[in-house]
């Protein structure tokens, strides 16, 4: 049994990477491996907004990640710098930047690149989806 982490940089709506990452995550969990953390970076952080409202016949990637995280106790972490500049903020970042609202989905956390470094040190494999 191995411990994995994933690095996801894919834009949710202009590439397939988020779908590939979710499928890879589900499969490794089905095989009995551990998934320590999914770190969202660059355009990948866009999936962490709780305000996505895709058409009913399309997959809601945010909810797909959230379901996986809640059922399997997986950390979903969005890079604070990548998120702030793309308008993905939690309550404390909104306050710190004097913004009028926040939009981070509750299944996600905002943190720094240290979380990616730590995931690389603590996982047997880190797989990137971009």
């Amino acid at each position, binding site marked *: 049994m*191995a411990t*994995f982490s994933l690095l996801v*940089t894919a834009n949710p709506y202009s*590439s*397939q*990477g988020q779908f*590939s990452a979710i*499928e*890879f995550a*589900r*499969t*490794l969990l*089905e*095989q009995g*491996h551990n998934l320590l953390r999914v770190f969202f970076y660059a355009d990948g952080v866009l999936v962490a907004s709780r305000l996505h409202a895709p058409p009913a016949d399309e997959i809601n990637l945010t909810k797909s990640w959230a379901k996986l995280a809640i059922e399997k106790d997986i950390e979903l972490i969005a890079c604070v710098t990548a998120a702030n500049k793309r308008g993905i903020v939690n309550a404390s970042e909104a306050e710190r930047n004097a913004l009028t609202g926040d939009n981070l989905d509750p299944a996600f956390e905002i943190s720094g690149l240290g979380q990616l470094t730590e995931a690389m040190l603590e996982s*047997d*494999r880190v*797989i*990137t*989806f*971009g």
Partner: protein
Amino acid sequence: MNSLYIINNPQKLSEALPFIGENDGILLIEDAVVLATSDSAQTHCKNQFALEEDLIARGVKDKSQASWELVDYPRFVELTLTFDKSITWL
């Protein structure tokens, strides 16, 4: 140390090839699977894989060449463990 090179864009394989040894692995996913349908994408690498469901999604599975082993997601996960590390060439 052998690496698994994950390629998701058909234009990136030629960029990565100079760095890929014959005992490394190449895994084509997403749009890059079209390379597995073409004679022109011959490489010196002995371990060539393509994600079957991405070939099916693009309607080109029937055209895939025998030199590329078709794999599913469970095998994708196994490959990342078989090789010492994976490099996604973005």
